[in-house]
């Protein structure tokens, strides 16, 4: 395991310098949305919180950290990354894989298309689609988190958002259950796009989707009550949903939340979970970019890991 305090300092410094926990260009958060021509203010507003978009950068950082963890050179590497970050040269050290960037951008575009088909036309804040700050909260950087949360809330209000539609469990949880405790007067209604689609009635052509096994993310299943909706939506789209040994509230974590702190331990946990899922079926559905990244990183060509938004959008297996 890496030195936790060094990692926390890197996250803190990156947030202060760039508004993101890992080195990534700001425009990576909203450039995917430009072809969709969503109105730039109004409600409901799609708020991604940037987690899908920074996932390719996280995967790249974790890949590098894993190598350094093996070589015991992490201290030197982290000091170098802190220096580069301070000098604004972070783009030089983190290069995400183009296919992963394309994959997560297609997920976000698919979510917008699914919402439109269900009659929900969302606005989007573009430059104001800021990172939610979830990692600051998880690591206990409370003062910085509070400061950032107020900034995010003001940005959303300036874009006339009343209801925000979120796209991943971490952002849904932080915006719905944590922000109200940290931001005075917080009055945004927060819904996951899965909840919105299930309520609005998914308009999709019935597919002969085949069998899939579902991996419940901890935050949706244990903290936000999003369990039935993804199953309902998949079944409505023609998929047969299989349950792993541990599912619903009793789900098992993918290991992703510690991938930046303990890459080897995260991989061990992901392998355990992948084994549980794949004993049911070779096609695994994820609802979270962190789960996707961590399970995908330990999968082989016998197993497919796919995000639910792409399956609902008609991606063939």
């Amino acid at each position, binding site marked *: *395991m890496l*030195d*936790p*305090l060094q*990692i*926390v300092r890197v996250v803190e410094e990156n947030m202060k310098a760039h508004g993101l926990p890992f080195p990534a260009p700001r425009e990576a958060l909203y450039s995917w949305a430009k072809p969709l021509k969503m109105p730039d203010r109004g409600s409901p507003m799609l708020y991604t919180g940037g987690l899908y978009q920074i996932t390719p950068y996280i995967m790249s950082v974790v890949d590098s950290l894993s190598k350094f963890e093996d070589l015991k050179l992490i201290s030197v590497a982290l000091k170098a990354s802190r220096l580069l970050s301070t000098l604004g040269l972070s783009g030089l050290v983190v290069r995400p894989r183009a296919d992963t960037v394309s994959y997560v951008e297609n997920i976000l575009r698919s979510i917008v298309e699914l919402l439109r088909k269900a009659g929900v036309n969302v606005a989007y804040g573009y430059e104001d689609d800021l990172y939610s700050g979830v990692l600051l*909260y*998880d*690591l*206990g*950087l*409370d*003062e910085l988190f509070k400061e950032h949360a107020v900034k995010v809330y003001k940005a959303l209000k300036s874009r006339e958002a009343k209801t925000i539609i979120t796209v991943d469990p971490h952002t849904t949880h932080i915006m719905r259950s944590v922000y109200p405790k940290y931001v005075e007067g917080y009055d945004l209604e927060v819904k996951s796009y899965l909840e919105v689609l299930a309520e609005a009635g998914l308009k999709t052509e019935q597919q002969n989707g085949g069998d899939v096994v579902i991996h419940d993310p*901890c*935050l949706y299943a*244990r*903290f936000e009550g999003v369990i039935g909706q993804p199953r309902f939506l998949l079944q409505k789209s023609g998929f047969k949903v299989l349950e792993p040994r541990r599912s619903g*509230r*009793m789900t*098992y*974590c993918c*290991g992703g*939340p*510690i991938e930046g*702190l*303990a890459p*080897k*331990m995260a991989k*061990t*946990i992901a392998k*355990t*979970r992948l084994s549980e899922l794949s004993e049911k079926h070779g096609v695994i559905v994820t609802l979270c970019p962190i789960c996707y990244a961590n399970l995908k990183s330990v999968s082989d060509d016998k197993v497919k890991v796919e995000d639910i938004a792409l399956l609902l959008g008609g991606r063939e297996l």
Partner: protein
Amino acid sequence: MDKSLRVWVESEAGRCVYCGFCEPVCPTLYPGGHRGYGPRGRVNIALNLVEGGKPTEEVLKSIYSCLLCGACNLVCPAKIDIVSVIRVFRALMWRTKTY
């Protein structure tokens, strides 16, 4: 350390009866290698250090390797909010720079 949060951690973590029900569901216990990487260990580390003791390197690894996944919260018979104990303890350590 911040008194109200410290008191909260003490009252919450102090309800642990060492039953160990939380351990089989914790994903980090087995790869961590000892009980400091499970919920029971972490809760009692927090309880012992919340008064201001200096954490060792291994204690920091234990506390920061928690996934905050909440599997332990579901099975704790004392209904301890273990996830919040760990997260608040991280915040207290960072705020007061006790390491």
